[in-house]
């Protein structure tokens, strides 16, 4: 779908965790899983830039975002009330592809879970067998677990401090899920986690798709502000060449 700019009405603003909110807007942003939108958090010139958020879920008449208060922009966003209008541009970027294998292993780290709910829904609709791994530092970082669990065939949660699920880094528990049937790997989370997932994929010979982040201005590929260095040494714009990249493109083979 072509991106467009629209004014969307805020329907619901739910606190679903410590500092974590689920925001539902009215209207259609025909997004693919892994795509994102740019949101005007406040009707003023400060903060100036839009804020990028992954599509957490979407339907023909709603768009749902899942976000954490990370600074001033997200704080202001969390104060917006039902009935208010927000400017939203999207869908933007390249999402997750359907993949070739019948099995999908999806790994979420903290807020990296945001785009993966819609991905689970999409994979399930495509008839895949889905294993979902959800990691966070502490129990407080695992939100909406019921929703994620209900969309996965296998569900594993892990926290670094063991306060919920298994104790350890989530990537430690992924290996068995890759040892059987050929699977595609999908992940979103902090960079060290993505690196670990890429290594697992390489070992298993699996296709691997990673969703990245960068500071953005335009979000549409025009300003060249969000580049990261690709494994070939060339630049990639996270907003339009990504945010989802093949693991090799970022970490090499």
């Amino acid at each position: 779908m072509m991106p467009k700019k629209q004014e969307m009405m805020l329907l619901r603003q739910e606190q679903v965790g410590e500092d974590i909110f689920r925001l539902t807007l009215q209207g259609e942003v025909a997004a693919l899983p892994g795509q994102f939108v740019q949101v005007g958090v406040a009707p003023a010139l400060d903060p100036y830039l839009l804020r990028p958020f992954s599509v957490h879920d979407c339907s023909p008449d709603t768009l749902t975002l899942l976000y954490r208060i990370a600074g001033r922009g997200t704080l202001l966003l969390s104060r917006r009330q039902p009935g208010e209008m927000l400017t939203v541009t999207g869908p933007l970027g390249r999402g997750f592809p359907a993949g070739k294998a019948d099995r999908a292993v999806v790994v979420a780290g903290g807020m990296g879970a945001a785009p993966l709910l819609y991905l689970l829904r999409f994979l399930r609709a495509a008839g895949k067998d889905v294993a979902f791994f959800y990691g966070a530092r502490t129990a407080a970082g695992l939100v909406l677990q019921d929703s994620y669990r209900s969309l996965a065939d296998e569900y594993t949660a892990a926290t670094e401090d063991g306060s919920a699920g298994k104790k350890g880094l989530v990537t430690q528990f992924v290996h068995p899920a890759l040892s059987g049937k050929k699977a595609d790997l999908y992940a979103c989370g902090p960079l060290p986690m993505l690196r670990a997932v890429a290594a697992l994929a390489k070992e298993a010979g699996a296709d691997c798709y990673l969703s990245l982040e960068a500071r953005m201005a335009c979000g549409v590929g025009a300003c060249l502000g969000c580049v990261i260095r690709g494994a070939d040494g060339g630049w990639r714009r996270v907003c339009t060449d990504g945010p989802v990249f093949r693991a090799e493109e970022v970490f090499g083979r």
Partner: protein
Amino acid sequence: MTPDLTVKIGKLTLRNPVMPASGCFGYGEEYAVFYSLEQLGAIVVKGTTAKPWTGNPPVRLAETPAGMLNAIGLQNPGAEAAREKIRQLQQYNTPVIVNVAGHSPKEYLQVIRILDEEPAVSAYELNISCPNVRDGGLAFGTDPQVVNTLVQAVRQATEKTLIVKLSPNVTDIVAIARAAEDAGADALSLINTLLGMAIDSETRRPLLANLTGGLSGPAIKPVALRMVWQVSEAVHIPVIGMGGITCAADAVEFLLAGATAVAIGSAHFINPTVCPEVVQGIAAYLTRHGFRAVREIIGLAKKAAGGEGEKDAGKDHCRS
């Protein structure tokens, strides 16, 4: 009656006075998905150099109060590749202005040489905020003599409309403007970004890998308006005003200050359809106030201020 929005910049007649600012619009394709670029007065493309430039390492962006810093470092594919992209823009039947950059006069001239035969290129905008490697890295745009020499050289190399884009990081922008006019520029555009910096108090590091970056957005609008006011009354060629425009009222302010046309830069990042919205807003403004043509309001604030513009503009009074 819909008001007449046409304006002239050098040899070009623009259907309206609104264009994107260089570097904020890529080579046009990214925004063509939002609206037809035929709605623009002109298309201004990314700063283009003779050879490809890789630009600066990330982080390249930082948000600031009512503005942003960028340190893209003129990443661009070079003039040959740019030409292919520019050809794609011909379909929009809108003048294409190529922003030209380089580290030496020779590099600027190479760009002109590569592009001058290309009919898809309507005009050049010389970005003289670039560091002059020969002259110890100080930007070309900070010394009237250097500007004069560079602009003369380019003037001799092309018949196309030649716009010179001024840096605001100077003591006397009027002197630079006059140097460019004397050297044969057809028009001036201003302002480029203010040199700024951001530091993260928690990590205790500069936010940009390049340390400093260019400040743009509403934060700089007062400086831009002042410079457009000063320059437009000191020269006889048209001025394209920019710096912090986010809406039609902002654009009108620049026209009232003496700009013949306006460019919109970082506001694209908060509103991808800002340009056509500003075009419509200017037309609505003219209609509401009973003007028949946008030309009628160019410099009008100066008449309101009793024509004492240059004298009063910051010279005679201590400001604070």
